[in-house]
């Protein structure tokens, strides 16, 4: 493959941020198809339009997911990218790698693909960008036999679940996000690899309400860590923050570069508490935990003084999606608190998941995310399917219209009435 002139892309080699163009050019020295990637991208920069088309490929044999078919619409000019399929590789929960594994993956991709990758794709998989159809089976063979790992999800499958780093390196984790994510990923291998649903379905696990994997915005099934007892307070550390002691910067040091003056616990913590449930008594910080909504702000600001409560678990919210088609949705709170326990293989969470699936597979329309089905059918019906008592926590506020869908059995005497009897008493 010949080198292509790339005057437009060359402009993206300038500037302080690392340049993917420079990186691709260096890679082209050993993987010449990278020249065709650059060449076709340069053409897109010139034409201001994509030059990729989609193909029907979805997986390796027996899999209905994990591969996304892709073809160039200018293959004669750029034969190196005629086929340019994506391979999704399921990531280890929490995105830690041994270099041994990472190098083996790179060797595999150098052998069978373009050498171009994403660390990571939006759903969380490692993404290999660009290979030919005939390489897919050999790649999969080596991936499973030599590296002992597997493809991720795509299409109308369970997508590869993802999580924050959880307890591995975060003091705020309210449950072991990596463990439950890994466990359910293994438990639902069939649903990840073979289509099962009206449309895609995503699990995301964030171990606290800061929600570092954007579970509330991006997953159909969002598991977000919380607690049910009281925020744990170290009053000596509170005093250290108030006194501006060394090693006690506000917000864990996140504001060190700003000119914000001395830490002011009243202005920065107490007054910013959304429920106004905190106050000072002398040197001591008091919290009325019954009023607390566990938003994490005070804990974020004073990580050495405040910790989540000790009775930890998660809230389950359901139904987030991006705007196609009727607008974006966040997940809706369904289960206020659930323990996330490895001891019973996360049975309680699996029960909830399968109730959602059984209902959605039955009533969901083609290409309808579960959040859209919930909206179409209504939250009251969804809660009754889930066998969950309606709670004020399920809504921000009660409805303001009176159009209740009463059921016949809720009305004494039912709906079966006789118009003739009615007319005897009410002339028209």
């Amino acid at each position, binding site marked *: 493959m010949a080198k292509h002139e790339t005057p437009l892309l060359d402009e993206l080699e300038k500037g302080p941020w690392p340049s993917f163009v420079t990186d691709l050019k260096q890679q082209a020295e050993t993987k010449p198809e990278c020249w065709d990637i650059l060449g076709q991208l340069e053409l897109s920069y010139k034409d201001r339009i994509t030059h990729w088309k989609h193909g029907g490929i979805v997986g390796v044999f027996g899999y209905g997911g994990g591969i996304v078919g892709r073809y160039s619409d200018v293959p004669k000019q750029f034969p190196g990218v005629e086929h340019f399929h994506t391979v999704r590789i399921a990531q280890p929960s929490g995105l830690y790698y041994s270099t041994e594994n990472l190098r083996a993956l790179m060797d595999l991709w150098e052998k069978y693909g373009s050498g171009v990758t994403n660390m990571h794709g939006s759903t969380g998989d490692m993404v290999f960008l660009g290979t030919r159809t005939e390489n897919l089976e050999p790649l999969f063979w080596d991936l499973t036999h030599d590296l002992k790992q597997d493809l991720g999800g795509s299409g*109308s499958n369970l997508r590869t679940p993802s999580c924050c780093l959880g307890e591995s390196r975060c003091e705020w984790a309210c449950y072991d996000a990596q463990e439950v994510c890994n466990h359910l990923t293994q438990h639902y291998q069939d649903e990840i690899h073979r289509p*099962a649903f009206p449309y895609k379905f995503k699990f995301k696990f964030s171990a606290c309400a800061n929600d570092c994997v954007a579970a509330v915005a991006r997953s159909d099934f969002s598991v977000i860590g919380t607690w049910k007892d009281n925020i744990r307070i170290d009053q000596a550390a509170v005093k250290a923050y108030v006194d501006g002691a060394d090693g006690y910067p506000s917000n864990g040091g996140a504001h060190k570069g700003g000119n914000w003056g001395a830490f002011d616990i009243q202005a920065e913590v107490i007054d910013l508490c959304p429920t106004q449930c905190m106050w000072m008594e002398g040197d001591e910080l008091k919290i009325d935990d019954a009023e607390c909504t566990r938003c994490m702000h005070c804990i974020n600001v004073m990580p050495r003084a405040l910790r989540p409560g000790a009775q930890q678990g998660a809230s389950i919210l359901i139904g987030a999606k991006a705007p196609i088609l009727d607008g974006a949705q966040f997940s809706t709170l369904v289960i206020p608190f659930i323990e996330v326990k490895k001891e019973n293989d996360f049975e309680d969470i699996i029960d909830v998941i399968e109730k959602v699936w059984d209902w959605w597979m039955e009533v969901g329309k083609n290409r309808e995310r579960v959040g859209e089905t919930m909206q179409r059918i209504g939250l009251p019906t969804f809660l009754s399917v889930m066998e969950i008592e309606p709670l004020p926590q399920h809504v921000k506020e009660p409805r303001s219209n009176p159009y209740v869908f009463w059921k016949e059995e809720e009305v004494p005497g039912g709906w079966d009435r006789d118009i003739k009897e009615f007319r005897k008493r009410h002339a028209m």
Partner: protein
Amino acid sequence: MALSLEELEAAIIEKATKSPKPQLYIKDFYKCDPDAKPRQIKNVANDLVKKGELMFWSSGSTTMYARPDRIKDEEGSEGIN
């Protein structure tokens, strides 16, 4: 009365062969046996893929099912599913 596994397989293959459009959603197969649970139908359809009676086909973001001989893949990518 639920169909036997063989009857359900035959009904799914017939549906995929005779439907006006070659690509079907999993939901299109639910009608093959209204008494079966959706997950049961899904498992049978996915098994038929393994047996080569059906193939997966992607619209781009949705995965569908088809009889392999009804899909003319202009990119020449037969052989994958």
